[in-house]
């Protein structure tokens, strides 16, 4: 089980470039402890059970879900920045009228 947890943390670190291991461990800590306890009760569960633990904890699930999606958004936006539709729509455009409200 320990190696499963470490693997999951390492995967999270890969998905959080620039984040320290400590921070990632904190983010996943609740799920890790919970999954460890559950693993003691359900030692014969499949490895996917760790993922389903995330799904029972809404915040961690969302955090984990977004950790998985992190790279895809950044990469997608890199592509958007280079795309024809983006450059044609924004290049040399004026910010336009600015209404000062502050």
């Amino acid at each position, binding site marked *: 089980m320990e190696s499963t947890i470490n693997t999951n943390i390492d995967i999270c670190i890969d998905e959080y*470039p620039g984040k320290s291991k400590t921070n990632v461990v904190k983010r996943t800590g609740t799920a890790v402890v919970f999954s460890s306890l559950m693993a003691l009760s359900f030692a014969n569960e499949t490895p996917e059970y760790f993922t389903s633990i995330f799904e029972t904890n809404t915040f961690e699930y969302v955090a984990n879900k977004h950790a998985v999606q*992190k790279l895809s958004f950044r990469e997608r936006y890199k592509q958007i920045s280079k795309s024809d539709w983006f450059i044609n729509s924004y290049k040399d*455009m004026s910010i336009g009228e600015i209404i000062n409200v502050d």
Partner: protein
Amino acid sequence: MSWLVPEEESKITQGTILDNIPWGLDPSPLGVVLSNPCDLEWGKASYILIASLVPARETIQLTKEFQQQVQNLKEKVVSPNKWDKLSKFFKPFINNQNITRYFFVDPTKVFDAPLFFVDFQHLFTLPFSKVTELEVIAKLPSPHREKMIVHFSSYISRIGVDREDQEETKIFINHLAEPYRQL
């Protein structure tokens, strides 16, 4: 400060950040819901109104105003004075101090993406029956959500009015400045 929070209920309401929006663009940007939350909640919305989230740095760096800021810079490392001017240029956007076409959003604490602008010109409406095809990513919490809507409504409701001609303007300036006058 993170502007976004995770959406825990997968509920679509005003300020919800969505993916899988059929913009017809490749690659396709995320979007944020502008529709009135009461309309969404009480079955009064036949369509859902969404604005795109565009990359803030690239968007602002493509503008004429930014190009003017950097046009005479030969080096990428700039003097403190010039950096101060650049900072003053960016700060009103970062704090959404002024109402413009763009509304700044920082998603970085919730998912890995660049800083965003909501673009009030890049809008999309989708039949409400199709919202199940959209993926909920996060939400813009209150009061940022309401502030975004105030910016959107103010931006979209601007009315172009002819300005006074130069001679008329001079007369008004002279009147308003009395007893002071130009040397």
